[in-house]
């Protein structure tokens, strides 16, 4: 299948989605994202995203466990993720509806 966009596998969205069910540290985020999205986030990409999300107040760091620091969504991050996913869902529903109508008309 041809690749037509990157919104659904935007690293920031994937990281926020990974943190939606609780706090995780870097390695847990990468394995989780790989499992549910099939995307392997490299350490440079992951920490670039974590820095960006943290600076925007969408996630926060918890006290480090050993050398690994878990991150969790803030209330603002949860709201932003929900909004983004609803938008994606709305787009997906609209697209699927139109495909069905076109299929029926053929």
């Amino acid at each position, binding site marked *: 299948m041809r690749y037509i966009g990157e919104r659904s596998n935007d690293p920031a969205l994937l990281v926020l989605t990974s943190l939606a069910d609780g706090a995780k*540290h*870097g*390695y847990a985020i*990468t394995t989780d994202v790989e499992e549910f999205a099939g995307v392997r986030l*490299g*350490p*440079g*990409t*992951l*920490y*670039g995203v*974590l*820095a*960006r999300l*943290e*600076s925007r107040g969408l996630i926060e760091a918890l006290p*480090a466990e*050993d*050398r*690994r*620091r878990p991150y969790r969504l803030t209330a603002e991050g949860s709201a932003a993720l929900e909004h983004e996913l609803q938008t994606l869902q709305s787009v997906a529903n609209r697209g699927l509806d139109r495909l069905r109508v076109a299929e029926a008309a053929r």
Partner: protein
Amino acid sequence: MTARLARLVLGLYPLAYRRRYGEEMHALLEDGRPNARTVLDLLRGALLAHLRPQDAPTGAVDAADRVRASAVGVLMCWVLFAAASFAFYKTTEDQPFSAAGHVHPLLGDAHLAVQAVALLASATVMLGALPLIAAALMRARRDPGARSTVILPFVPVIGFAILTAVVVAVAHSAGQHHTSSASSGVAVAWGIAGIGCGVACVLACRAALFATPVAPPRLRAALASGTLVTVAMFVIAAATAIYAVALAIDAGSVAGESNGPFQVLSVTASLIVVTVVMVAAAILAATATRRGWRVRNALAPPAQ
């Protein structure tokens, strides 16, 4: 090998990132199996981290360390810039270039400007560095444990001086009995060794500077020197660009001659490469300087 390379690339991240995420990133590299893709991803991440300072973690670096990092950043850029300047000097040192400079005043003026500003900038580097060197030496005098850190920056400099002496001695003893490709190879190897020693020296200076308590006025002086050096880099780069254009227009035959150790580039192409390296170094230095100026007022006042 790849894992070690990946850990080395972590050193290319801005200081704030290394302080805030360095341990975690090391742990992540230990948890996974770094490969070439990991190294490329880290290189890209480091570049983006430098280009997007607005995303940098706040509070990870205090003002004094920020200024230290700025000073070291400018020094590193100066090393790269000096290598390009040396290439400019070697390219334009021969008689046809000085003859062209006498006939076409713009060429002569641009060449003179490069030399004069380079001299001033070198003096400014020394002026900015001397108070920091003095602070490091004073600390080494008080604390024997710090001596190796303070001495370390001198090692690459001495090593390069010895290497240069050996190369010159061998070249003199060989006289005319060496091939041009052999001498070109030696020149390239010497140049690479010079850049390597310069980078090693700056990294050692960095370690010494971060281990040395420095009074805010000295840090401010270093920042001011770094700013002047950065301005000088832009002036020299502009003068070099003017020289390259003027040479191509006024002395086309000289500009079209083969140049460089293996004679693979024309003089004009060499000057373009030199100018690009100079501009890149100047832009990086300006970025480092700007970061220092942002926190200048947050430097603690000198102890009463």
